[in-house]
């Protein structure tokens, strides 16, 4: 009863109006419009997540963001010019970039990736009636909201057996002020294909107080190998809520890395299903938070078949009054014998008011498995600091070196050297800007 009452609060009504207004501008009609309406109804039933929903206990969106802002208008020529500068500043050397500005794919800012990748847009698919692309998981309100309001996104498909020579980097640029950007990206990696994909979230000059609502739908076919890197560098007053729905086939390999240094409030929730035997999953994450930032990484790893391995390594560096959240759930279904699942999370608290919450959950229904988790939180080790200072490093340099090493434990999992160095460079810049 309580939930129904809450859904009808001011927040619920505001969103209702939002959908009514946005509807006209959303691509797709007929079945697609119907799918959107269903998704929106699912969202309305649940409402904006709040602390009494167990999965959102540490990230109460009703308290933190209060409402979903109105959908952003399509970017104009001047906005695209502003976005150009952001793309230049954030593109990773050696990768092919695909650019979304305020939720619209912009070909003139994008490169042409290798021929083994086929690139399209969600907009053209929806206009063509592909309503299944909006199938929403009715269990999570934010996934439903995304299906209801997605304006565009990248549709990426890598052919069977092919190997992308260059990583593809999708850059989500926000130029908006006080508006929501809603996108949905699909990646299909063919059998035995190999690829690296980076998603970056960045603001253009002047972007302010915006919300990014993104979804990433990935399928990794048998024997394929995917490296997926997410870099959340939104402006310090922005909101980023992204859901990843990822399925992995047999004898496949997925390395997922997430680094959040931007955004006032951010949440990445990854739902990863290991559905084919003998696959390996590694998820590594870094939160670099300061001021009053709130950064949440929530992972649900579902072992449904025997013989898969999952590893999660998470590092949080939390300064000032910032708040870092890591929730990791590992589900081992009755058939998933010989599962090997581990997670390890460590938080470095750089101030007395910094906060880190960690919630590991193991749901094991098979009897022949190896699963475990470990977590620590604390300050920098005084003995290590003194050792470095006794060797001539200033307090600031000694701290920076130790934090870099701490973060490096998660970053080193990125196999591509260029990407790994780019990510380490971002972490270093964060450290330099700290003092």
């Amino acid at each position, binding site marked *: 009863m309580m939930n129904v009452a809450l859904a009808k609060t001011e927040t619920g009504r505001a969103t209702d109006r939002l959908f009514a207004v946005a509807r006209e501008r959303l691509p797709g009609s007929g079945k697609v419009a119907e799918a959107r309406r269903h998704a929106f109804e699912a969202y309305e039933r649940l409402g904006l997540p709040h602390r009494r929903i167990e999965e959102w206990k540490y990230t109460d969106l009703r308290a933190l963001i209060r409402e979903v802002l109105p959908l952003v208008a399509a970017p104009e020529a001047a906005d695209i010019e502003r976005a150009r500068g952001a793309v230049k500043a954030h593109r990773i050397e050696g990768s092919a970039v695909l650019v979304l500005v305020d939720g619209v794919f912009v070909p003139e800012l994008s490169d042409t990736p290798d021929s083994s990748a086929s690139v399209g847009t969600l907009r053209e698919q929806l206009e063509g009636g592909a309503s299944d692309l909006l199938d929403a998981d009715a269990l999570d309100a934010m996934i439903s909201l995304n299906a209801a309001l997605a304006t565009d996104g990248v549709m990426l498909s890598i052919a069977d057996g092919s190997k992308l020579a260059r990583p593809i980097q999708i850059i989500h640029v926000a130029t908006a002020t006080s508006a929501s950007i809603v996108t949905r990206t699909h990646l299909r990696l063919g059998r035995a294909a190999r690829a690296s994909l980076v998603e970056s979230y960045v603001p253009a000059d002047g972007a302010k107080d915006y919300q990014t609502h993104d979804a990433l739908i990935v399928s990794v076919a048998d024997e394929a190998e995917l490296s997926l890197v997410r870099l959340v560098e939104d402006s310090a007053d922005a909101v980023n809520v992204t859901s990843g729905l990822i399925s992995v086939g047999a004898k496949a390999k997925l390395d997922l890395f997430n680094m959040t240094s931007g955004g006032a409030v951010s949440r990445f929730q990854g739902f990863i299903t290991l559905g084919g035997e003998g696959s390996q999953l590694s998820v590594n994450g870094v939160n670099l938070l300061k001021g009053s930032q709130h950064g949440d990484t929530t992972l649900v790893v579902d072992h449904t078949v025997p013989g898969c391995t999952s590893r999660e390594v998470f590092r949080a560096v939390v300064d000032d009054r910032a708040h870092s959240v890591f929730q990791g759930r590992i589900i081992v279904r009755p058939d998933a014998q010989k599962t090997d699942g581990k997670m390890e999370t460590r938080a470095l608290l750089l101030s007395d008011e910094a906060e880190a919450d960690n919630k590991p959950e193991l749901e094991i229904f098979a009897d022949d498995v190896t699963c475990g988790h470990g977590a620590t939180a604390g300050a920098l080790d005084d003995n290590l600091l003194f050792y470095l200072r*006794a060797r001539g490093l200033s307090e600031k340099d000694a701290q920076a070196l130790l934090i870099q090493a701490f973060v490096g434990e998660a970053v080193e999992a990125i196999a591509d050297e260029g990407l790994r160095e780019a990510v380490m460079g971002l972490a270093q810049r964060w450290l330099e800007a700290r003092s």
Partner: protein
Amino acid sequence: MPLLEVKDLSVRVDEREILHALSLTVNEGEVHAIMGPNGSGKSTLSHVIAGKPGYEVTSGQILFRGEDLLAMEPDERAARGVFLAFQYPVEIPGVATMNFLRTALNAQRKARGESEFSTPDFLKKVREVAKSLNIPQDMLRRGVNVGFSGGEKKRNEILQMALFEPALCILDEMDSGLDIDALRIAADGVNALRSPDRAIVVITHYQRLLNYIVPDFVHVMSRGRVVKSGGKELALELEESGYAQFEDAA
């Protein structure tokens, strides 16, 4: 002017006085041994000279070439040439030894207004020193002291000493945890650094180390004071008679 002058130094930790009006003078070119039983304050003295936080100096002073050492941050002391070889060198995962050595050396040089070492010069120098200390190259690529044996950790301390070329080297219980072969290698490394413009202070519980690093002066500490000073023969005397006689004197 002496290199190091500790004058009437009293130090507290958690309301407990560990050093009581301790005095010690060390000149360039000298090798001093500080001996004493566990808990006599030897390590505290070395920590206070290096600038470890957590110690309260209640009276006295420490001068380094006439400058007030206690007013300096630990890194300023290092840049001026104070080096403490730790009894328990820490492990720093994720910081490659080579990177650490270069960062530290260049930080010290920068603080002294000297130019930073170029990478080829630096590498050449590290390789030379590492070779003389029997430190394999792959150790330098690993995290600082990560997975090193006790002997390797101590050799890594001496490697740093050789690289940073400090004016004052304090070796805190360098012999602890070392077998005789490891001890000999470490001691040879230290002896190679003896020089007319460098002083070495060896802190040890046992006389054994002093067979390898022969001191000019020996001081006996007990209960936070230097209770006796003499030449190298004092160490042998102690080996015969033990510390018990000094426990009473203090």
